[in-house]
């Protein structure tokens, strides 16, 4: 990192007590969930663009992109916010250290249901069921219990609950927003129109 340049740029925006990057490092060090740029800006008392720029600087800095050492940790944007992570290269090392049990895996049925909900949200249970051609009640219950999906709202006419995915799912997928989902077959868009009435 080119220290002179960054610090000068930051000092302008930081009202008092250190640079924006330093203040960001301090807050991120005690965060236990991803923090959005807006809440970071509030926390460090700097405008959003300055925070955004400082985050960029930090990411590059930790990645060794500015001439310094590559850090054993990195800053990642996941599930709508920024958070310190162990650098991927060292995940195995750390896993040995923390031990812990392997988390339960989702079944194929749950994964497919999750995919349908992720791409089709807001979507009702019966719409999901008609796409998968099976009853999905118990799978939906599992996904709800795991906090991967949530009830968005009830249809005012039918009362059917519409489901969507949560930030927790984004975190567990390691993506920042639904835009991070891979594009699904273009065929879908053509076919989808005719389905609404049938799956309603």
């Amino acid at each position, binding site marked *: 990192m080119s220290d002179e340049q960054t610090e000068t740029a930051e000092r302008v925006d930081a009202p008092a007590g250190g640079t924006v990057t330093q203040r960001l490092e301090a807050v991120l060090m005690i965060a236990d969930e991803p923090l959005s740029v807006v809440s970071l800006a509030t926390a460090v008392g700097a405008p959003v663009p300055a925070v955004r720029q400082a985050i960029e600087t930090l990411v590059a800095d930790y990645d060794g992109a500015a001439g310094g050492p590559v850090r054993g940790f990195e800053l990642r944007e996941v599930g709508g916010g920024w958070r310190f992570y162990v650098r*991927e290269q060292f995940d195995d090392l750390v896993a040995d250290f923390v031990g812990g049990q392997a988390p339960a895996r989702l079944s194929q049925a749950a994964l497919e249901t999750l995919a349908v909900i992720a*791409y089709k949200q807001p979507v009702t249970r019966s719409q999901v069921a008609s*796409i*998968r051609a099976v009853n999905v009640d118990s799978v939906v219950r599992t996904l709800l219990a795991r906090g991967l999906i949530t009830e968005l709202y009830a249809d005012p006419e039918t009362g059917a609950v519409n489901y969507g995915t949560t930030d927790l799912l984004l975190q567990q*997928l*390691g993506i920042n927003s639904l835009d991070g989902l891979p594009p699904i077959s273009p065929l879908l868009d053509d076919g989808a129109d005719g389905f609404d009435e049938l799956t309603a």
Partner: protein
Amino acid sequence: MAPSPDAAHDETPLAPRAEEADPAGAAEQDGGGGFRVSLGNFDGPFDLLLTLISKHELDITEIALSRVTDEFIAYLRDLGPEEDLDQASEFLVVAATLLDMKVAGLLPQGELVDAESVALLEARDLLFARLLQYRAFKEASGWFRARLQAEDGRHARAVPLEEKHRAKTPELIWTLTKEEFAALAMLAFAPKALPHVGLDHLHAPLVSIREQAAIVVTQLRSREKMSFRELVAGVDQIGVVVARFLAVLELYRHAAISFEQLEPLGELTLTWTSEQWSDEMLASLGADYDR
């Protein structure tokens, strides 16, 4: 509605689809022996169809579907009555579409385009579209699996606050009594209930299947034989008609009555056949519908 399990394997007209499926599916399938479907591996008819299609390394085309239809129907026949009824009925819907398509393929072409064949074309296109859609989501689920697994191995910083910062957290506001706390515990320990979709807004009064069954029993025992039409004569609430029909099915399950129906959708004649009926049996009748 789905046929009752008892109806699926006898000659009553209650399960027309299953009846039709038999001769058509059996036609040229037996003795092939090349392909075996292991029961229970498939999560839904689309899954099975895709598996069958991929076994033959076919793309999803009309040819693919016509080649796998027989295997699909054969699989369906192997679905024993112990299989999940929901699942079986979902398979039936797809099977019916496939069968229609097969029948249409066997018929001479160039006939008049009537309403039925138009409907058939639509059904076929729909099935294709839904298969393609399902395949797309199935592929997407592979990405989900890989991402979840990869992210599982990642380690985010999540450590408790150090003591001096802990002290700065706002003082706890506690409002629960010990009784409320206990109630919360009960809630936490209770098996998680399925999210319930309220039907109250439909303003439909609840109808008891047991009550309706009691009426059916009384009427049938006094008359010995009557049609379902007579049984619901004078009833103007659709819910009561449905409940009375469910009661009839339940009584059939208990072998208390028998059916006669000379043609599909024809008059349904009910006969009281039970010799050791006791009204105590009413108490457990329709327990499947209790929620």
